[in-house]
Structures are given as structure tokens and as C-alpha cells.
């Protein structure tokens, strides 16, 4: 059998890595060919031509060392080395790749493959490569790989690399493959043999799920998408749905076989995926949580026993399981977002090692919403949950805020007033997204409509109070709304989206409110209002204006600055918005 030129090239390129130096390679080969027991320091051999008077030449020995495990799709080329002793002049090494037993005459003679458990175990339990991916050389019989000479004429102390592919560039099938080296003289007589069993396995994470440990600092928060199809426009992950499910670790056949990577995080903030596989969902936790990430691995088969396996995830601690069990749980070492609520996103690098050697690195794209805590609506059922679109928008809008409720509310006022693109309804002061059901205590916000700006960008105070309440309670900051009643005239105000101060927001004949909705977290002792800014100077009813954002202003001061005349007081101030 003549090795294909491409393989020889590959191997000789591998030889450029250099020889193993100063290494008694016969000592640890573990192969049946290393049991000669002969001294390895023969010192030159029979060169004195003394006939039968001198000692017989020592038998040559050959050792082959290298890694016990390789993933042909993820590992890349691994280093192997030959080490011969007392090698006669002119002797060279022929290297043969022998498939797992049962795979076409693979009589490796090694402990692993000879035990009978590797051929069926490995190839059967691991994700199945294509039938022809393990077919090597010229067998021409898919599914029935045969031994193939990888190289011949190698020196007895050559180093080479192998990447788990056959001479045609196809990743070989899973199982215990044997690399067999034979030292032959110039007549073709075998002088010594060595072998290294290499367990070929396709590694990979096939499922990942955030949360679920039950720990107090691992309380995953359900995320809701509001434009789902089917029985309801709402779909939430129940705080239990896996982030990703891949089903397989590779796809494609033959030389085109490639590992399946974990996809990018689902980008659509409104619509959820319609299939559970091949997607990667975001998740949410409190900012000071230490989330866990449970990972399920493809079975390693007999490769599990061939090496000591470990896994590492940058910035996360392994707290349960190991790769051979097929299940790992990592816990984030530091708090999710030590500086406060925000969107934590990026790629995690999962390293899989066998005997300390890197077998594969898998990237896990993540997007975790770090909020102040679980939603604080009066109801904890859908849709009064954390909406993905709201979390994404608000957390990016208030990024940098300290992890304190009042700071978050202050930031939300600024974000809504300045950044949400809203404009006060200076015609009628009518709501476009909020409504009341059963009186002022039954506030509802059409959150779906608002997120889409379905009714436009004009709003009133009920809308702004509802928006504030919706975002705050979604982010885990309790916030009620209060209704200021009734029919009072106004000092100078600067309404949202309006460029100037006025005391008559509806024109010369419209200088008062029949009511006004604000938000509070302490029964109107303190007020947050994204509808309008006040005049903060000594005379709030006239120029000049000292623009005052309504962020944790006392309820008394708020009324003093807002109301020019008329009776005004806070009512319904323990009411919490409901979203729909």
C-alpha cells in the first residue's frame, strides 16, 4: 500500500517540529513492542568486525509516544514522537494507522483496543460520523475502514503530528485507533514495533441551561417575548428553558464534517424562536447573583477512560460533575454585574482537556440581563414578567447606574424623559397606551403597543407613569403610581418632548390638569415623574426657569412646584401598573 502523497506531505511537514530530544521514549510507550528488556545504551553496535568473538549486537527498540485522545474536529494537530535505540544503519520506520477493532482488521494489539470494548463502545456511543469519514486510504468501502500506511522511510527518532484525519483529509470516525510504527531494515525485515492508541472522539456541549441550582444567589428570572405565534402573543422561558440545545456535535460528511458551534444569542427581542434547537436564548438574573450554567456533553465513550478529563470556563468555577459524566455545572466566580444592573454579554470560552492537553475550545455566546431582582408587579404570572425587549432597552439606557433602587428610578426618569422619543399630548393630555379599568386604581399599560410605538410617540401622564412603573417593576424596583386630584391650575412645567416651559400646556385656555399621574415608592412621600420637569427656583410659577428633573422629590415639594392654584392631593398611591 502506498500512502497518498498528501498525507506524506502532511507528515513530513509535521517532522519539521523537530525530534524528541533527551527523552527515553521506550520507557512509557505502554505498547507491546517495548518489552525487549534490552539495554538501550548499546553504544555503537557491532562495528569492529571481530567475527564471533565480540558480544552480539543489542536488539533495536522503538517507542512511540503521543496523546491518548484527539477530537478530529476541534483539537488540531497533536505531536507524536518516535524514539529508537540501537537502530541499525539503514533501518527506517513505517507508520500505519489501524482502525478500531471491528472496523476492518484493526488488530492493534493494544490493551484498550484489544479489550474489545473500544471498537463498539467508542464508535457506538459517540455522535456518529458519516459512514465514510472513517474510511481511510484505498479501501473504497464506506463504513469499513482498513489499516493504511501513513508514512514510510521515517527515521527512528522522528517527530510528527496527526490531526485525526485520514489521508484524504476526512476526520476519522470515533473509536480507539492505533498508530503502529514498525522499524524495518533495508530488506524489509521487522526489527521492532511500537504502538500508540489514540481515542478519537467528537467532543462538544449539546445543551446549556442557566440557573436551577436552587441557591439564593442563582435565582434566574423569567424572560418574556411579546410577539409569539400560536395561542398567545406572549411566550416566556419560565426561568427554566435551556439557553441552547444542539442535538448533535457535528454536521456534514466526510471532509466537510464540521463541529456545530453554539449559535449567537437570539437577537429578536420581540419574537421568540419557533424551534427549540439551534438557538441560544438570553437569560436574566439579579445583578449580584452568581449564576450557574449547566452543560451537557456528548458522550465520550471509552475515551472517557483513556485520559483524565477536565473542563474550564473562564471566569466560572466548576462546582459539579466532570466531562466523563456528561454533565457539568459551572458557577460564576464573581457577581454577575458587580457595578450594577446592565446587560452582560460576550463569549465564554469552554476548554476541554484530557491529561492536561487541550482537546477543544468551544465558544458560548451569552447575553445575561442583570437586573435589580425579580419583577415586582402585583401579579407574578405572565405577562407581568421581565420582557426581553424592555430589559434590553432599559438596561442599556441606564447603564452605569448604581445598584440602588432610587438610583435606578432616577436613571429611568432621565432615560424616559430624554431618550424614549416621546412627546406630551399638548392637545388633550390623553393617553395613548395607558388606561384604567375599574377606576384609577386599575392602571394598565399596553406595553406591546408601547414597545412598538404602535400608536405613535405622543403620550400623557398616565402613559409616562405606566411606562415608568412597567420598566421599574420589570427590573425589580417596586414602584407604584399615584393620581393627583383634581382640576388644578399649573405653575411652569416643561413637558416631555416639549422645548419650552409653560403653565398652559393645552394652549391659552388650557392651563390646568383634571388629574395628574406620577410614580412613588413610598405612598407619595417621594415622587418620580417622567412626564414633566418643574421650575426648581424660588418662584416656580414664573420666569426665570431652573429646570428640575423630578427624581425623588418630596411629595410636598412636588405639589408646591406643580400646582398654581386649586386643591390637589395624592390618591391611589399604592397602585401598581399592570402590563399587557
Amino acid at each position, binding site marked *: 500500500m502506498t500512502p497518498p502523497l498528501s498525507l506524506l506531505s502532511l507528515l513530513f511537514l509535521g517532522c519539521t517540529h523537530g525530534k524528541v530530544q533527551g527523552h527515553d521514549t521506550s520507557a512509557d510507550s505502554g505498547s507491546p513492542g517495548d518489552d525487549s528488556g534490552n539495554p538501550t545504551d548499546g553504544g555503537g553496535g557491532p562495528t569492529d568486525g571481530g567475527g564471533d568473538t565480540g558480544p552480539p549486537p543489542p536488539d533495536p527498540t522503538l517507542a512511540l509516544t503521543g496523546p491518548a485522545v484527539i477530537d478530529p474536529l476541534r483539537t488540531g494537530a497533536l505531536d507524536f514522537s518516535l524514539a529508537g535505540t540501537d537502530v541499525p544503519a539503514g533501518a527506517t520506520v513505517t507508520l500505519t494507522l489501524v482502525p478500531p477493532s471491528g472496523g476492518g482488521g484493526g488488530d492493534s494489539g493494544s490493551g484498550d483496543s484489544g479489550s474489545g470494548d473500544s471498537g463498539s463502545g467508542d464508535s457506538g456511543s459517540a455522535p456518529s460520523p458519516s459512514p465514510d469519514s472513517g474510511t481511510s486510504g484505498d479501501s473504497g468501502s464506506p463504513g469499513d475502514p482498513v489499516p493504511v500506511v501513513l508514512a514510510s522511510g521515517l527515521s527512528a527518532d522522528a517527530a510528527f503530528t496527526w490531526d485525526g484525519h485520514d489521508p484524504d483529509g476526512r476526520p476519522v470516525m470515533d473509536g480507539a485507533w492505533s498508530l503502529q510504527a514498525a522499524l524495518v531494515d533495508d530488506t524489509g525485515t521487522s526489527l521492532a514495533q511500537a504502538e500508540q492508541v489514540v481515542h478519537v472522539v467528537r467532543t462538544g456541549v449539546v445543551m446549556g441551561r442557566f440557573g436551577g441550582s436552587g441557591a439564593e444567589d442563582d435565582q434566574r428570572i423569567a424572560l418574556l417575548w411579546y410577539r409569539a405565534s400560536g*395561542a*398567545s402573543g406572549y411566550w416566556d422561558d419560565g426561568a427554566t428553558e435551556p439557553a441552547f440545545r444542539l442535538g448533535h456535535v457535528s454536521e456534514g460528511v466526510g471532509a466537510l464534517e464540521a463541529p456545530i458551534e453554539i449559535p449567537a444569542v437570539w437577537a429578536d427581542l420581540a419574537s421568540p424562536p419557533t424551534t427549540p434547537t439551534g438557538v441560544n436564548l438570553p437569560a436574566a438574573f439579579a445583578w449580584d447573583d452568581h449564576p450557574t450554567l449547566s452543560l451537557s456533553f456528548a458522550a465520550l465513550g471509552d475515551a472517557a477512560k483513556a485520559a483524565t478529563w477536565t473542563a474550564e470556563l473562564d471566569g466560572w468555577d466548576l462546582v459539579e460533575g466532570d466531562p466523563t459524566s456528561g454533565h457539568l455545572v459551572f458557577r460564576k466566580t464573581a457577581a454577575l454585574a458587580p457595578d450594577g444592573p446592565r446587560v452582560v454579554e460576550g463569549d465564554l470560552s469552554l476548554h476541554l482537556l484530557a491529561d492536561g492537553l487541550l482537546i477543544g475550545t468551544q465558544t458560548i455566546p451569552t447575553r445575561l440581563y442583570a437586573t435589580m431582582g425579580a419583577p415586582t408587579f402585583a401579579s407574578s*404570572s405572565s405577562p407581568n414578567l421581565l420582557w426581553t425587549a424592555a430589559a434590553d432597552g432599559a438596561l442599556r439606557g441606564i447603564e452605569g447606574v448604581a445598584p440602588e433602587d432610587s438610583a435606578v428610578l432616577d436613571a429611568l426618569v432621565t432615560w424616559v424623559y430624554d431618550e424614549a422619543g416621546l412627546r406630551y*399630548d399638548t392637545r388633550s393630555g*390623553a393617553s*395613548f397606551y395607558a388606561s384604567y379599568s375599574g*377606576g384609577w386604581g386599575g392602571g394598565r399599560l*399596553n406595553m406591546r403597543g408601547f414597545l412598538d410605538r404602535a400608536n405613535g410617540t405622543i403620550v400623557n401622564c398616565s402613559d409616562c407613569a405606566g411606562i415608568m412603573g412597567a420598566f421599574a417593576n420589570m427590573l425589580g424596583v417596586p414602584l407604584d403610581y399615584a393620581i393627583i386630584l383634581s*382640576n388644578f391650575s399649573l405653575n411652569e412645567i416643561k413637558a416631555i418632548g416639549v422645548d419650552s416651559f409653560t403653565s398652559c400646556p393645552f394652549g391659552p385656555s388650557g392651563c390646568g390638569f383634571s388629574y395628574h399621574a406620577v410614580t412613588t415608592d413610598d405612598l407619595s412621600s417621594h415622587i418620580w415623574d417622567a412626564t414633566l420637569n418643574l421650575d426648581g427656583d424660588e418662584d416656580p410659577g414664573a420666569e426665570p426657569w431652573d429646570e428640575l428633573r423630578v427624581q425623588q422629590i418630596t411629595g410636598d415639594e412636588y405639589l408646591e412646584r406643580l400646582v398654581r392654584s386649586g386643591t390637589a392631593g395624592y390618591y391611589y398611591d399604592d397602585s401598581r401598573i399592570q402590563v*399587557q
Partner: protein
Amino acid sequence: MDLLASLLLTSLMLLCPAAHAAGIHAGIPVQQPGLGPLSHLSPEQGWTAPVLDANGQPVGVVRVYVGPTEAAAAAWLGDARLAVQAPLQPLSGLGDSALAASTVLLSRDGNVALSVTLGEGDPTVQARALLASIVDAPAAWPQAPRMRQQDGLWFFEAPGASLEVQGGHRPLGEPWGYSVLPEQVVAWDAWGRASVLRP
């Protein structure tokens, strides 16, 4: 004689379903020109849809409620007026009762109540169009959704109606089956009437 009158009335209703007087109506067809996609809010609140301009851009919103009684519609109208900060003035000639500000109009006709809110312009045109499309047939209120269990999931059916489910949980990728029972399943018919199942 009563039977004859009833038959005559029924025939008239079938021939000319539009109704413009007080009483119990079937509702307003939810597909209306000039409106965007509707959203069902809740049985207590009815449905809503954006008002679109000639370019398809949103310029306002309508809310429509079809209640079981005139009193329910009157209560809905009372709630609707709570969300308008400017003073509302009574208006005649639009249903049984109507209130208006410059860009807002609230009206009730029998058991049907509605609001039209625009950013600019006169809401009367849209309100009149909605009131004119009130129909009295079909009179039968939609049936509440039915529930069945299959393969460990709960499914809900309401032939001829749109379903809106609140609460519960569906596995990812499962459009119709619930692994956790919802709190409420609402069947909405094409005239904006809602029937509720609370599993």
C-alpha cells in the same frame, strides 16, 4: 302577532345588520379601514388598534369595548375618561352619550363603547365610522374556549374565534400546547366580544 313581529325584526336585522340605536348590539367588526393591527387587551378592556394615516403611519389609537350590558359599557366609558387630562365636554349626536376634547372622543351606544384619540385632527370622523359599523347580528355571544389534554399538554379551542391566553407556560417551539395551565383563556369573536375560560 309577537312572533310575526319578531320574525320581521330578525329578517330586517339579517338584511341590514348595521345598527345605530341604543340597546344590545353584536359589536363592531374588528377589521376596520384606517386602523392597524388590533390587539386584544382584556375582556374588561376590549380591543385596541392604531389609527393610521394615508402613509400607514400611526397617528392615534382607538379602543373598543363590547360589553354584555349597557351598564358595563357605561362603566368602561367612565374609566376611559379618567385617562384624559384636559377637560372633556359632552357632545350630542354620537351614540347614547359622548364626551370630547379637541383630539379625543369617547362614545357609547348601548353596550358598545369606544374612544378615539389622535395626536392631531378631529376624532369625530373615525368615531362616526366606528359607530356606523355597529351591527346587531350575530346576536349569540361566542362560546367560551374548550380545553383538552393531549400528550401531557393542554390545548384550547374556540372555533371561529381568536384565542388569547394569559399565564401558563408553553415549551419553546410549541405554538398551541401548554405544559402549565394558563390562568385565563379568552375567545374573541370578529365583533369584539369576549368569552373567558379559567381553567
